[in-house]
Structure formats: C-alpha cells, structure tokens
C-alpha cells in the first residue's frame, strides 16, 4: 500500500471510531440532560430505591432494576454452559461435518427476529413452565423470560467464543497433541485458557444483548411492577418499562421519568461490563 492510501485509511478508521464513541457519549448526555432535572438534586439514588406507583406520585425503578438484573443474569447462567458446550463440540470434540452444520445453524439463529423467540416463548415455553411449577401462576415469569432470552443470546456468545477458540495458536494445539493429550485435555489445558479473552468478550456481548432486549421480557415475563421474590415471579425489566410507559402516554411525569430509566439501564450495563472484565482478568500462567 502506498503511504497516501495508508494515511487515508487511517483517517477513515479514526473517524469511524470517533463517530461511534461520540454516539455513545451523545446518548449518555441526552439521557442525562432529560433525566436529571426530573430526578432533582442529589435525589437520584433515593428515586431508584422507590417503588413505581404513579398514582401516589412515586416513580422509582427498583422493581425494574431487579427485574432486568435477574432476567439478564439468569439468561447468561443458562446460555453460558449451552454456548461453551456448543463451541467445545465445534472445537474438536465433535465430528467435523456435524460441527460445520452446527456452525451454519448458529449463524442462522442470529438472524431470527426477537419477536419470534417471544412467540415461541408464549406458545411453547410458558405453558410448560405453568404446568411444571404451580407457583409460577400464568407461567409468565423470570424463569420463562430468561430461558427464552438465553436462546436469543447464545448465538452471539457462540460466535465470540468461537473467535476466541480459532485464535489459539495451532502450534500449541500441535504440541499438546504430540505430547499425548486427548481431545478433552487439549480443550481444558490449552484451548480454554488461551481462548479466555474471547470468552470474556462473548459474555459481555451476551450480557449486553440480554439487558438491552425488550421484546422477550415484555412478552413473557409478565410485567408486574413489584420487586420479584423468586424466579417464578412475574417481573418487569427497565426496557419493557420504557416500552410500556412510552406506548401509553407522552406528557405525564411518568413519561418523563423514563429518561432516568434509560440512564439507569445505561449505567447498569456499564457496571455489568466492568464487573465481567474484572472477574475475567487473566491471572493465569506466566507467559
């Protein structure tokens, strides 16, 4: 490449990076500007901790915060073994031909619209949960939503995990093979530790999708506005809340409070990303 094209490429990439960083900052600023006056000086945290009861003038999101946290965390708990298992299968435990089929299927799954998952949830999963757990009431609960959500986020996680697996130096794999490692040992002792950064990224992306998804929780979590006491309780996520409130009116105090709701979601997501990064920091072997 000539120097000029190299320079141009560098400028273009820098600009695109700058634009996406600006977009993120802009969204944050927007939420801050619109959400803050309503929250008032220093009352942000007390507002978060309050219940949602517009009739009494209470606009707290504590129920939605717990709803989002519970549903997204639980969906990752379900999706992690599923995704990791799938990637391990594709990464040498399973036969090559079937692995390619699975790979294609996973890529196909990323393209399925969320609403389809929601439908499947309503017609297949919710009745099952209702029959299995009598305390789940209608079956619309945290468990149903997070199970369905785990199906939604798994393909994303699998794709990032697989990237991590594929980036492992083949010489390490060859060394392990030649030293008599079987396929499971190769996976545990060589591939997984080396693919770790990809796994952490995959979890972060999965968590981001889970927290940001609106439709599945809206359709099958039940949307009750109280702090859930168990995973069989109905719950409302921050995203469903925003959708529900903004669909019903646009001029009330309740409506204005959803800016603060968005802000909360933004912050919650940032905290989750930081937490996963911290937990996933590689302490492992010296290199």
């Amino acid at each position, binding site marked *: 490449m000539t120097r000029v094209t190299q320079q141009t490429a560098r400028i273009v990439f820098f600009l695109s990076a700058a634009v996406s960083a600006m977009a993120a900052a802009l969204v944050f600023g927007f939420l801050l500007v619109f959400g803050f006056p309503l929250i008032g000086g220093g009352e942000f945290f007390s507002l978060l901790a309050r219940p949602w009861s517009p009739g009494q003038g209470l606009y707290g999101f504590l129920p939605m915060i717990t709803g989002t946290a519970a549903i997204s965390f639980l969906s990752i708990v379900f999706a992690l073994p599923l995704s990791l298992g799938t990637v391990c299968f594709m990464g040498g435990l399973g036969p090559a031909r079937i692995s390619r089929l699975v790979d294609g299927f996973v890529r196909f799954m990323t393209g399925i619209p969320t609403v389809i998952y929601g439908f499947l949830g309503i017609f297949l999963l919710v009745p099952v949960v209702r029959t299995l757990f009598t305390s789940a009431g209608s079956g619309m609960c945290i468990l149903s939503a997070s199970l369905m959500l785990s199906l939604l986020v798994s393909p994303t996680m699998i794709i990032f995990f697989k990237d991590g697996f594929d980036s492992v130096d083949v010489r*390490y794999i*060859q*060394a392990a093979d030649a030293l*008599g*490692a*079987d396929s499971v040992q190769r996976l545990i*002792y060589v591939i997984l530790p080396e693919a770790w950064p990809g796994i952490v990224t995959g979890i972060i992306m999965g968590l981001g999708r889970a927290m940001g998804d609106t439709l599945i929780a809206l359709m099958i979590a039940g949307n009750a506005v109280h702090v859930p006491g168990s995973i069989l309780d109905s719950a409302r996520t921050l995203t469903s809340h925003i959708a529900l409130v903004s669909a019903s009116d646009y001029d009330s105090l309740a409506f204005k409070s959803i800016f603060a709701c968005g802000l909360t979601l933004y912050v919650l997501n940032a905290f989750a990303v930081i937490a996963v990064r911290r937990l996933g920091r590689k302490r492992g072997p*010296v290199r």
Partner: protein
Amino acid sequence: MDNPVKIRVENLTFSYHQTPVFEHINLDFNAHAITAITGPSGRGKSTFLSLLNRLWESQPFAKMEGKVWILLDGQWVDIYGKTLSKPDLRRKVGMVFQTPNPLPMSIYKNMAFPLKLTGMTEKALVDAKITAALRQAFLWDEVKDRLHDSAFGLSGGQQQRLCIARALVSQPEILLLDEPTSSLDAGAASVIEDLLVRLKERCTLIVVSHYLDQVSRIADTALKLEARGFLPV
C-alpha cells in the same frame, strides 16, 4: 546394522486430497540408532514423521493405507490397531518440531504437562522426573534457578532443548525430530547434535535434516526421500 529393528513400515501409501505422497513404502528402522531423512522440501519428510505418531490424522482429506509396527516390550504392535491408544502411542513416540513449540506456561509447567495428562500428581515424583529429563536434555544447569519463569524467556536453542526434555519426560522409546536445528544458530545446533547422539542409548531416533554435514556427523543410517520413495544415501 547390528541393532534389531524397532520400527517397521509395511506397504504404506499416503495421500492428501487424493494426491499421493507415498506409494507402497517398505522400510525398517534400527533400534538405538539415528536414522536421518533428507530430501528436497515438499517431498513429504514431515508427513512421513507424522505417520509414525498418527499426528496426520487431524488433517482433513488425508488418507493412509498400509501398516506401521513398533516393537514394544518384545511385542510387535500395530500403531493403528486397537492395542495402543493414540495418547499412549504419542507417549512412546515423542516428537520435536522445526520451530520450538513450548506452551505458554512456565518451564516447570511445560515439563509437567505430559505427566499431568497421565494423571500423575505426586509432587516429589513429578519433580524427580522433570529434573531427570532436563538433565538428559543438557538443560538442567541453565534453568534450575528459573523453573517458574516463562518458557518464552529462553533462547531458541534452550527452547528446543526444553521441547526435547518435555518429550523425554514420558520416557519415549522413539523420538521423531523434524529439522530440529533449522531455526537455530550453529552453536545451539551443535549442542543439540551432541545431545541427540547421547540419546541413542535411551531411544530410537529419526531425524529429518536438510544439512548433509549434520547428517554425516550424527546419523548411523541416512535415507534420501525421492519422488519414488526412500533411497539409501
């Protein structure tokens, strides 16, 4: 040629994507000797070594016919048969590659790796085996004070000796070396040549080498891989 035969290759045919690399090869290798294999690039020297520890099997579209026997405890064992598992075979038939390939771990953990695979956990025993193998590979004095440092901190020659030591820790009977000195300077190469000659008492060695002077220094038998198969040099 007084040594008994250790490896017997019988009517071996091999191809990648239906392109034959070997056709109907018959060949014996003597025990406790160094057999050198030379020949032009791309003729199949590395492939041939991989047939002796079944490493080729991870390659797609590769196909082999024929038999490979090795003599273990007085018995001829078909390495593609059911009596010997692939991991066990690879502990009996160690391999060292063209570029040193330590794992991204400490020197100690590299050495302990093959033992960990067999489930050996007793620290005293593991340590003793590691020390012995490092001594056999002429490396002990250079690494004994830095066993828990990264293996990547070693020089190229030291890394290659670490890889030899790591193969030796499983007490292999056969050692395959694929151009083991081609990435090293002359000094480091000569240490490894001396080492290989010393290892004859423990193992049967097959060394792929480009360097004819190296072959004449260390080999008991030299074979040249030509288009039709192996020819004596």
